[in-house]
């Protein structure tokens, strides 16, 4: 199998960052009650993961081991601030809606995880691809969670009313605890599926 397809498959399904590796949980809980914010967060994380992987991979030969993680954090912060500045300058409404969440991309463990686990040992192009697909795997789970939460919590999808007027919104879905339940259920499904697949072999 082509290395690029293999990486995509691993990152999207088999080794999904949230469901299997249990990384990036904090933002999964925090920004998934509204699909629009979730999409922007997912795009932000995907771009930052890809680009920081690319940069770490380019610089890896020159980075002293002792300050390796500090330099990675610097690179990640660099891209996150760029995303923040661009949103504030060109998409002020989106920036307002996301508030402090953009800055919090820095603390997303997936980005550091990919930089450490992949970019440190691979060439730039494939590292970029790995980062982008890892971000896409994260985005996939986030969108599923947000879909359920926004539908039940507000009765809307992308702020458009879907549920009938008589529907009573579930306040719990708007709050972070509901994401715990949904993510746990998704993990359960993912785990049992991978166990089944493993059993067949």
């Amino acid at each position, binding site marked *: 199998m082509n290395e690029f397809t293999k990486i995509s498959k691993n990152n999207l399904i088999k080794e999904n960052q949230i469901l299997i590796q249990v990384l990036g949980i904090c933002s999964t809980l925090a920004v998934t009650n509204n699909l629009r*914010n979730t999409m922007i967060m997912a795009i932000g994380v995907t771009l930052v993961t890809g680009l920081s992987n690319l940069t770490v991979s380019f610089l890896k030969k020159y*980075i002293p081991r*002792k300050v390796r993680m500090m330099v990675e954090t*610097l690179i990640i912060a660099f891209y996150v601030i760029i995303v923040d*500045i661009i949103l*504030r300058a060109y998409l002020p409404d989106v920036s307002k809606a996301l508030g*402090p969440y953009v800055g919090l991309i820095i603390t997303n463990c997936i980005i550091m995880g990919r930089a450490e686990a992949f970019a440190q040992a691979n060439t730039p192009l494939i590292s970029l691809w790995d980062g982008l697909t890892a971000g896409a795997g994260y985005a996939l789970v986030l969108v599923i969670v947000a879909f359920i939460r926004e539908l039940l919590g*507000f009765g809307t999808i992308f702020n458009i009313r879907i549920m009938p007027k008589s529907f009573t919104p579930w306040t719990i879905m*708007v709050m972070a605890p509901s994401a715990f339940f949904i993510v746990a259920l998704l993990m359960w499904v993912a785990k049992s599926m991978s166990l089944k697949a493993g059993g067949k072999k």
Partner: protein
Amino acid sequence: MNKEGKFYTILFSFITTFVFVLLLSLLNASTIQRIQDNERLFKIKAILKAFGVEYKNDQEALSNFEKYVKTKRINNVDLYYITSDAQTLYGIVFNGSGLWSNISGFISTDENVEKIVGIEFISQAETPGLGGRIEEEWFKNQFRSEKLVNGTITIQIGGTGDYDHENGKVDAITGATQTSKSLERIINDHLSILRDILGVRQ
């Protein structure tokens, strides 16, 4: 040079930090004007909305602001006012801490500070979906032409909107009691600041 040596490590850290921060400052410097314009425009729109002045686009918002809204600085507070046919409306920017964040916005009243004309938010970072809903139209509409009772507004728990504009009461957001309570305090504090500036008694 020894890659793991002290000298190289310090030099490398210094140079990478320098380069990345330099690039960021350049980006920041090249967009700062745009960002400030955005923020100013946002504030202007909030002021216009709170005064009930309509506009169709950003350009019109700016020109209407220039045309109708005047400012005066009293006691270190910027007082905004707008004179229409029969009356003058006054307003100030308010600021205060909510549950998580600083809530800022604009409130406008009639000349005797007996009735709220409108309220708009400029920035807030309350819980999205709960406290964050203070920016929703139904919530803000409760304040439109609301008569003050004893010079204050009361945000009462529960409900889906109190549109009786004579009772000085609006409904809080369900599940966001702390934000609603803070907002009540912020608004009442600023109403009394506005009264001081205008020299009216309640």
